């Protein structure tokens, strides 16, 4: 992995300084829809069949979808613990499948012009050339582009979209699909199971260490639309892979729904790192279920950065199923006015000597609200398990809000857990000090916020940490004065 050294020290690295790059708004642009396939508004049995027909699903998937629809319809909203804002999601006002009916292209030149322009503008082809082992670019419901470097493919690495995965590699796909996150895990995992389309299917053969990251980019272009990608990553024994995802959407008048399911399987001694830098526009409901299983001596790391959206609910989890398995969640959340970042981590220890680590930092700006929800479970019959949880919140303005709900259940007396939480504010004197050196108020605020998360930003691959700092700068610009 290319890990970021101190990105605040750009001399040794090529990383441009945060303030070098300025754009008005990263993803706020759209092109006219050219959809050949449109499932129409709302979700019924007919919608499911429409999607299954268009995608040419095998029977078992069609059946899987129908069952999931029932679960979705029966499950109540989790508003007894989660925000009431969920009730504002009008499921009848979304379209659940949109595509132009084209297969993903292996060359950017073959990608339709609008779509190519979109991803050009988001910098994807450039990143691919620079440092990626493979890219999948999803536009609304389907991948428009999908490519993997020949050298990586020759190692036997599979990197395709979920539809291609289930058609071409049913024996691997079927074994793990829906096993880490069952349909009925929650209302939104059920919804995704009913209408999923796109997302990545990755298989890394035993002992293969994929040197460069594989990346997926999820782009919403259409209004009143829901994106439901489904990602399944399997790292076989001793394999290693890093997967990165980015997401954007334009800001529409109406709400947009994004509800993904991501399942990771790290076999014995394998290592999966899953990096997210999402930058949704402020009308997106982002309700995502992410979980990994770590077998013996395996490691699953979620590195998660949540910027934007109206409401994000996301608690990446690791089930440490094998002895000495390790799970880690490193997360940064930034909540601006009108946004609620409800994020956290789930660590389920299911074998001896398993270790989990959760480090979460949130920043609330204006009237933004950041919530941390953590679950750590260590049952009585195990021994030698360790958990470390740290959550720090930074409040920028007097109206900013943060809440922490840690649930740590440790049974038995042969374990070690520690939990630390802090809430801090950027003080007026700190800003005065920085401004006395010539920084504007927004620059002073940006520098302070970047300082607050600096130790976590180092965990992101360098290319992403630069992007992250730029996004934070943009968020800070409107937050002062």
């Amino acid at each position: 992995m290319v890990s970021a050294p101190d990105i605040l020290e750009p001399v040794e690295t090529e990383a441009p300084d945060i303030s070098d790059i300025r754009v008005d708004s990263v993803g706020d642009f759209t092109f006219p829809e050219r959809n050949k396939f449109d499932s129409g508004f709302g979700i019924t049995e007919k919608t499911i069949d429409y999607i299954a027909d268009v995608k040419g699903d095998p029977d078992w998937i069609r059946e899987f979808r129908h069952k999931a629809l029932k679960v979705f319809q029966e499950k109540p909203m989790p508003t007894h613990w989660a925000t009431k804002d969920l009730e504002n999601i009008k499921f009848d006002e979304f379209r659940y499948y949109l595509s132009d009916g084209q297969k993903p292209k292996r060359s950017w030149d073959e990608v339709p012009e609008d779509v190519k322009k979109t991803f050009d503008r988001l910098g994807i082809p450039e990143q691919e050339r620079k440092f990626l082992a493979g890219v999948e670019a999803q536009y609304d419901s389907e991948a428009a582009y999908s490519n993997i470097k020949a050298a990586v493919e020759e190692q036997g690495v599979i990197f395709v979209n979920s539809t291609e995965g289930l058609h071409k590699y049913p024996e691997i796909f079927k074994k793990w699909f829906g096993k880490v996150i069952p349909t009925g895990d929650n209302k939104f995992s059920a919804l995704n199971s009913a209408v999923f389309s796109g997302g990545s299917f990755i298989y890394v053969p035993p002992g293969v260490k994929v040197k460069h990251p594989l990346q997926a980019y999820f782009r919403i272009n259409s209004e009143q639309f829901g994106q439901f990608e489904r990602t399944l990553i399997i790292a076989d024994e001793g394999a290693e892979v890093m997967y990165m995802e980015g997401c954007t959407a334009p800001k529409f008048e109406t709400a947009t729904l994004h509800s993904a399911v991501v399942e990771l399987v790290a076999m014995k001694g394998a290592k999966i790192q899953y990096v997210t830098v999402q930058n949704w526009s402020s009308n997106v409901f982002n309700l995502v279920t992410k979980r990994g299983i770590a077998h013996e001596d395996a490691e699953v790391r979620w590195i998660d950065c949540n910027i934007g959206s109206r409401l994000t609910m996301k608690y990446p989890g690791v089930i440490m199923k094998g002895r000495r398995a390790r799970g880690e969640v490193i997360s940064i959340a930034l909540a601006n006015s009108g946004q609620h970042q409800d994020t956290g981590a789930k660590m389920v220890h299911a074998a001896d000597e398993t270790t989990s680590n959760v480090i979460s930092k949130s920043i609330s700006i204006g009237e933004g609200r950041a919530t941390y929800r953590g679950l750590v479970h260590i049952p009585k019959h195990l021994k030698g398990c360790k958990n470390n949880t740290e959550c720090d919140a930074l409040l920028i303005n007097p109206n900013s809000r943060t809440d922490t709900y840690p649930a740590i259940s440790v049974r038995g007396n042969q374990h070690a857990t520690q939990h630390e939480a802090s809430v801090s504010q950027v003080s007026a004197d700190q800003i005065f000090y920085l401004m006395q050196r010539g920084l504007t108020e927004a620059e002073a605020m940006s520098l302070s916020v970047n300082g607050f998360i600096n130790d976590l930003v180092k965990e992101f691959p360098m290319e992403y940490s630069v992007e992250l700092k730029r996004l934070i700068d943009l968020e800070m610009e409107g937050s002062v004065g």
Partner: protein
Amino acid sequence: MSLEIKDLHAQIPGREILKGLNLTINPGEVHAIMGPNGSGKSTLSKVLCGHEDYEVTSGEVLLDGQNILDMAVDERSRAGLFLAFQYPHEIPGVSNANFLRAALKARLPKGEDIDAVKFYKQLYARMDQLEMDRSFTSRSVNEGFSGGEKKRNEILQLMMLEPKYAILDETDSGLDIDALKIVSRGVNAMRSENRGFLVITHYQRLLNYIQPDIVHVLMDGQIVHTGGKDLALKLEEKGYDWVKEEMLAAAA
């Protein structure tokens, strides 16, 4: 060309602290301000820099002819005013080098960046002058620094930003004699005919190392006495009572 303070009145809610202060600092001059506790020394430094806790009720501050009282804190800094803080703030997670780069960059036209190679060359040279270890470039600004290290870091910033007018607010407090010598050496290296200094101190000791051209006594928000560097010695020896007596005599 000068930093001109004219009949400056400033207050915190309910209490006037500066009560008609007049002072002109020309480039090339080092002025020292001494005064008893509570006379308004630190207030003066903060008011000049635009701290929001203080309200200026009347008067003017002209920096090379331009009234800076309507300018924001950062604009005053970029116009050439620097304050070495008595209690420098810690900025967790922001490295010293990055902080200085950001501050220097703030002085360039939008979109331009500083030359990193030149920057580090200059930074290292300045740090050597202040006998600062290179590790300070990557350490977070002032975080975990000793009192003396913080003061050195203030002078490092002064040396890198090269302001037209520098205010040193009790830079000697908390320094042992060796650190005092090093810090003073740094300040003296920055003395030039193009730069004016205002050195605020409680103790004459600092002025043995940073020799002032002019010494002022600040009492109750006004400059009540001005003299040469010998004045500092007299204050050290005799305290401030004689100044008060002189004032009373003059008033009578």
